[in-house]
């Protein structure tokens, strides 16, 4: 058999690696800013793009899609050619992929702080950027799959399996969750509303964690851990079982983000049971990673790369045990809407994604630049800062989450809420927020050392752009080839990329389909409530402002069926109440109180118009200890009245029963309602014009949750 010679091009590995370092730095800095915003609300200095609700999506998108995303591509562009013994398929596609992805990130960084958002978590990017993401993802896919097609290795290694599953699933998730009806170049409504939108979103959101933060990084683990330790993978059999079990089961678990919500019980139950069944498949990955180090533990003690991998993989194991526990309804009743979730997520991201990325880069840079790492001890310091930072970040937030949740649920002996004022439960945990910011600062200090270390190493070395390798051509004919191993059938499948991908595609489609199709096709899942009516044009504009300002990041609109919540917030939220909510605004965190029934006058949360006006302008004037940031620009900015007809037309297209030709009358109705609210404010001595954003927002807030109270 003739041996063929070929050359790997390290250019895009290097570029993606630089990008992951740059965006990691930026994304974590933004996260740190958000942490400080929560302690010092006035830190936003009255500037929208410094405000927590604007930079939180910037932080999440930056660390997920820019830091981890470029980390994935670094690994894929380095390892795929080497595992398959062929260069990447196309340098042109590589260039489009690299620059396209960075442009998307820049576009995200420009739009999100300005409040241009779809408000679905980790899917906030507005529709033109969504289109760009899909195009670039397809370009990446062509480059990746064509490399597989051209491979010289007969079989694909487990890292490649995980990247195949990643590509397919992310494509499906991203497209389905981002189906939007544009009303302008910068604004759109999702085609789903209320509880259906929530289900699609959390099917996406959960699996963004699964197939963007987990499966591709399992690929990273499967390549870089055995490479760095120079040890064989612990169990091939385990690779097979945990791979298929993981991708099949993961996709079902989304509804655990909506336990005790308006989602029907049966979908919640599927979310629970599949989350529990995820423990073993997830741990399969951890076991295969950690036990690969058997025989190399002496190296682990000395090598910062391996140390980071060990902590990373352990963090993966911890958070994939914690996740299923949080998906038990009784635990979720306590943990949901609290900082427990934030702690849980950061064990995964700071630990698993962060540590694996740092380890990978520390391993790669000396090889890419043909030199030694500038300072091993600096890398060791980074390791300790990152590990301690992670603990200082997470542990206070566990305390914060549990403390606050217990306070929310506490009743006095006489049967009244022990802490009727939500703010009390916030001030109680502020010291823990400060500790979290300290932990984040430690972790970020480590990142600074990382950047310096890599910088110095790069400066001392010389970039090795091309690397020669050789391998025999692939045997094309596999007919009759005997595979006598126990897993022979799977071994055959590993040689058939198309069949393998089709099987993976089927495996990831089933769960979503079983949960979502009945939610859309069977009416009883969203029982109609006659009293629920479409929003008035002014309320609709106010709702879009609520979305744009990111209010959902701190205020839920989902009253759960517990006495402690119905006492505080009113009747629990019903599925039928959200049928005109494009997009849904359930939220996932209560840094402030729930607003689902903010407009109901007979409930404890009700506030008059003038209170809302004063509160948006200067929350600390109303409650000295409040950590809500001021939103003074709502008072000066004008409502985009001209957009109203297009929005109403879009709503009609989506099935909202406005009268025929209502788009033409909407502006008139908007002005009448705005005048009434402004007049009311002026009577309280507030000087305000009819056309300010605050008027629309007040209209929306005063409408919230009122429909089903009208008959009472």
């Amino acid at each position, binding site marked *: 058999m003739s041996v063929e010679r070929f050359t790997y091009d390290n250019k895009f590995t290097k570029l993606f690696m630089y990008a992951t370092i740059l965006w990691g730095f930026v994304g974590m800095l933004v996260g740190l800013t958000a942490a400080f915003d929560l302690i010092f609300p006035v830190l936003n200095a009255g500037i929208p793009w410094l405000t927590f609700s604007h930079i939180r999506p910037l932080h999440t998108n930056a660390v997920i899609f820019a830091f981890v995303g470029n980390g994935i591509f670094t690994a894929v562009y380095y390892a795929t050619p080497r595992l398959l013994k062929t260069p990447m398929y196309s340098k042109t596609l590589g260039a489009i992929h690299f620059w396209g992805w960075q442009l998307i990130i820049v576009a995200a960084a420009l739009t999100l702080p300005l409040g241009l958002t779809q408000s679905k978590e980790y899917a906030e990017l507005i529709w033109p950027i969504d289109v760009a993401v899909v195009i670039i993802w397809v370009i990446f896919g062509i480059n990746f799959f064509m490399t597989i097609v051209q491979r010289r290795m007969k079989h694909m290694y487990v890292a490649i399996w995980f990247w195949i599953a990643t590509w397919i699933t992310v494509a499906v998730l991203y497209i389905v969750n981002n189906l939007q009806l544009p009303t302008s170049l910068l604004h759109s409504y999702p085609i789903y509303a209320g509880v259906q939108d929530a289900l699609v979103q959390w099917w996406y959101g959960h699996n963004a964690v699964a197939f963007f933060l987990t499966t591709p990084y399992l690929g990273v683990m499967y390549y870089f851990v055995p490479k760095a330790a120079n040890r064989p993978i612990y169990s091939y059999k385990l690779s097979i079982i945990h791979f298929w079990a993981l991708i099949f089961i993961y996709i079902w678990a989304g509804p655990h983000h909506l336990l005790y919500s308006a989602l029907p019980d049966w979908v919640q139950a599927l979310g629970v049971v599949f989350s529990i069944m995820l423990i073993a498949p997830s741990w399969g990955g951890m076991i295969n990673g950690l036990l690969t180090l058997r025989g190399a533990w002496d190296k682990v003690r000395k090598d910062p790369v391996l140390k980071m991998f060990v902590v990373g993989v352990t963090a993966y194991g911890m958070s994939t045990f914690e996740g299923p526990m949080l998906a038990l*309804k009784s635990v979720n009743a306590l943990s949901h809407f609290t900082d427990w979730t934030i702690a849980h997520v950061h064990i995964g991201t700071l630990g698993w994604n962060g540590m694996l990325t740092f380890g990978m880069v520390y391993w790669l840079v000396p090889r890419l630049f043909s030199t030694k790492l500038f300072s091993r001890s600096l890398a060791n310091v980074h390791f300790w800062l990152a590990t301690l930072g992670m603990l200082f970040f997470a542990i206070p937030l566990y305390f914060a989450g549990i403390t606050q949740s217990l306070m929310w649920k506490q009743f006095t002996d006489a049967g009244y809420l022990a802490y009727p004022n939500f703010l009390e439960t916030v001030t109680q945990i502020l010291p823990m927020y400060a500790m979290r910011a300290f932990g984040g600062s430690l972790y970020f200090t480590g990142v600074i050392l990382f950047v310096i270390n890599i910088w110095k190493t790069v400066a001392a070395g010389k970039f090795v752009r091309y690397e020669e390798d050789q391998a025999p051509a692939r045997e094309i004919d596999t007919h009759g080839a005997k595979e006598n191993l126990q897993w022979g059938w799977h071994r055959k499948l590993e040689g058939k990329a198309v069949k393998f991908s089709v099987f993976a595609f089927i495996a990831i489609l089933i769960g979503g389909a079983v949960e979502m199709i009945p939610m859309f096709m069977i009416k009883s899942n969203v029982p109609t409530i006659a009293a629920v009516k479409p929003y008035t044009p002014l309320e609709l504009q106010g709702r879009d402002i609520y979305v744009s300002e990111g209010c959902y990041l701190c205020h839920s609109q989902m009253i759960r069926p517990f006495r402690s919540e119905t006492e505080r917030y009113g009747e629990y939220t019903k599925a039928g109440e959200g049928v005109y909510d494009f997009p849904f605004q359930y939220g996932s965190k209560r840094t402030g109180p729930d607003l689902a029934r903010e407009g109901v006058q007979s409930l404890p949360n009700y506030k008059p118009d003038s209170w809302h006006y004063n509160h948006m302008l200067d929350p600390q004037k109303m409650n000295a200890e409040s950590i809500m940031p001021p939103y003074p620009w709502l008072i000066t900015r004008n409502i985009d009245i001209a957009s109203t007809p297009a929005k109403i037309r879009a709503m009609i297209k989506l099935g909202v029963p406005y009268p025929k030709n209502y788009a033409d009358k909407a502006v008139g109705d908007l002005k009448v309602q705005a005048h009434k609210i402004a007049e009311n404010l002026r009577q309280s001595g507030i000087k305000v014009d009819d056309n300010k954003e605050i008027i629309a927002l007040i209209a929306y807030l005063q409408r919230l949750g009122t429909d089903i109270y009208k008959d009472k």
Partner: protein
Amino acid sequence: MDKEKNHLQKDEEYEIDTLTNDRLIKGHDYDGIRELDNDLPPWWKWLFYITIAFAIIYSIRLFVFKAPDLIQNDEYQKEMASFNASNAVAKAGKTFEVKLLTDKASLAKGSEIWHKICAACHMADGGGLVGPNMTDKYWIHGNTPRDLYNVVTNGVIAKGMLSYKDQLSDKARMDVVSYILVKLQGTKPAHPKAPQGKKYE
């Protein structure tokens, strides 16, 4: 015969990893990465089986037996029913007298409630902003303890004043009313709201 042959062929598929004495699978070499032929750890297998068993039992309980503890509205109704029953017992036979309280403990409790709840609209010093000034002699709904108690209890919904009968106990409402009348009346707030209502001497 067949079994023996299989076994022989199987043995040829392996080499031994010297550090762990585990079998390496022949032909599995990806860029230098080898794979071992280790079995699934038994505890891992059992973990997987147990979670699957949990899932099956959980599903049967919900889908077949409609277990009330898995149906959230049933759970909620049960929680409310048990509270209402115990609350009815607790409240039975108790009467409450509306009367100004001047003892230290009551006024301290009243002050606490004032700062936690009322200050959001009436300001911490009682000067008023969204709600009226509580320090002057002008009252919209009367100035007796009974008048104030009624306002706090039932609210003035049209004007934005909430009803607190479901949030604060009778005693707590009386505490805060007493705090207003005993402590806030006659003080000088930083930014007093203009007088509203009728003057009472």
